[in-house]
């Protein structure tokens, strides 16, 4: 365990720094490495300073925090459901957030209320999906996935309805939000706070999660207080998903791809997978957002398009392999 933990952090921490550097250096204008360092020593041109410090840095940090949160949320949900296909996006949480955000955009509210409505929508969707799937028994993975998919379809219909009745001027902003968009993220620090807090909480809980992954009865027989632990994971996963979608919109599949890749490399110890998911999720979304800014510059792609292009094949592959 210690060895794979050191290996994971030893690889992923430098990679995180590198990803943020790349995000600072590339975009509509590429900044040479020397000029980038000059920005931090205060010797760069005003244009470069503004570009890096006021536009790219907050955006890169926001993308990193949101990606990290989505990665951890996915890893937590997969343990909770004992199913590698669980992901906030697949389970309809992002759909709820989208409806909340779109409704407040339609009402012409400010960005603060859009975020608050997205947060509320994600929580509402979590309560609906997990509440219905829980019923009187325990969370059976099949029932939960099906409930999530159906609820997501319901949110999808509502999204189409809102788009249909919205004034044309509102549409581009709405579509961007729906596909995931980091450009509105202004203040990445609350999300960073949540991310650090969650990783610190997840580390001591990791071994318990390892035991829980073997089924609730076996876990209880090995001394895990199953109900409180399950509710903790559930509430934490819901809150961090809501925090992430509030920042970057409905970005899908980060929580699916990241933990899966990490399990292939580092094994399945949650004490390694959870912090590694935070870092790797951050790296993935930071790079995806950089790509989204660069491919058709000066135009931007929604970052959700990039993650979906990566995520859909991975999801199908997992589904295919799981018989």
């Amino acid at each position, binding site marked *: 365990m210690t060895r794979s933990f050191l290996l994971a952090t030893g690889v992923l921490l430098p990679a995180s720094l590198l990803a943020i550097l790349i995000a600072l250096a590339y975009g509509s204008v590429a900044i040479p490495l020397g000029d980038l360092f000059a920005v931090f020593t205060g010797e760069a041109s005003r244009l470069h300073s503004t570009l890096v410090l006021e536009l790219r840095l907050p955006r890169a940090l926001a993308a990193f925090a949101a990606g990290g949160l989505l990665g951890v949320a996915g890893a937590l949900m997969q343990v909770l459901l004992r199913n590698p296909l669980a992901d906030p996006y697949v389970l309809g949480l992002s759909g709820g957030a989208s409806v909340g955000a779109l409704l407040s955009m339609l009402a012409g509210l400010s960005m603060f209320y859009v975020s608050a409505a997205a947060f509320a929508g994600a929580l509402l969707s979590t309560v609906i999906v997990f509440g219905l799937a829980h019923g009187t028994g325990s969370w059976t993975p099949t029932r939960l996935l099906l409930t999530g998919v159906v609820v997501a379809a319901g949110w999808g219909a509502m999204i189409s309805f809102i788009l249909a009745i919205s004034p044309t001027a509102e549409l581009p902003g709405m579509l961007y939000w729906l596909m995931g968009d980091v450009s509105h993220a202004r203040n990445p620090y609350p999300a960073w706070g949540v991310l650090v807090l969650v990783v610190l909480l997840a*580390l001591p809980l990791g071994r*318990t999660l390892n035991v829980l992954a073997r089924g609730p009865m076996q876990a209880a027989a090995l001394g*895990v207080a199953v109900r409180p632990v399950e509710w903790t994971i559930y509430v934490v996963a819901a809150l961090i998903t809501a925090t992430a979608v509030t920042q970057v919109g409905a970005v899908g599949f980060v929580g699916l791809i990241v933990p899966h890749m990490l399990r292939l490399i580092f094994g*399945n110890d949650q004490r390694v997978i959870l912090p590694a998911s935070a870092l790797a999720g951050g790296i993935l979304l930071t790079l995806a957002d950089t790509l989204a800014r660069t491919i058709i510059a000066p135009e931007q792609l929604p970052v959700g398009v990039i993650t979906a292009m990566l995520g859909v094949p991975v999801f199908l592959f997992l589904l295919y392999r799981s018989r």
Partner: protein
Amino acid sequence: MPPVPSKTGSSPHAHAPGLGARSVHEQPGPKTLLASHDLVIDVPGRADGSPLSLTVNPGQCWGILGPNGAGKSTLLQTLAGLRTVRSGHIEVQGRALRELSRANLARRLGLVFQTHHDGFPATVLETALIGRHPYLRPWDIETAEDYERARASLAAMDLADLEHRMVDTLSGGERQRLAIATVLTQDPNLLLLDEPTSQLDLHHQVAVLNRVRGIVAQAERAAVLVLHDVNLAARYCDHLLLLYPDGQACWGPANTMLVPSALERLYNQRLSVGEVDGLPVFLPRSE
């Protein structure tokens, strides 16, 4: 000839539905590992049946016999605190079971389930190592000693060479031995084993049960086993609990319970009785 019922207990001959339990009333002592008081387990859709007042003391190896659906697994899981009782209560080492925290309970009793679910891929060694979970605090990392215990348990179950194998590549019998190795790593006072030999070959059946007897011979240890093989129960268990499909039950020292007519009624199956090595042997008649 069936052995003579002991003085303290009623003979299982006397068992009849509706008459309640026929039991040996052994009073719980200061060292009693597990005691149930008028316990009625909760089997959905079934009437209450006999209230069970069992006393499992150190050095004892109990066998639970009964047909499919009699509630053997439910009873075992209830005794482990994993299911709610319908009525009555359970004490573990003199303390009320429901007052013990899960982790505390897991240091006192360990349960091997009949079926095993492996959610995510894991190696054989990792799986045996989770038996140490109840002993570790949240921030603790498994020490070399924990690994040593896990490896010793694997060796005891003949799995030492497989420690790096993934669990999902094991055969059914190997998986079952791994589950037992995990509970050996857990090393609780009381072992609760649900059909621990159901998938094992003859040699490993004997090896597992010998190991259980070896553990029970240590201080402060006992075991309760659900078994389907009456003859293994006759050889390895000193106390038996017969659980009838309607929830009626009788229990006591093994020699008072191994009465052909009672076993025939238990399984609704005619039996031929012989004797091998001084022990009764029961075989189903085919007619």
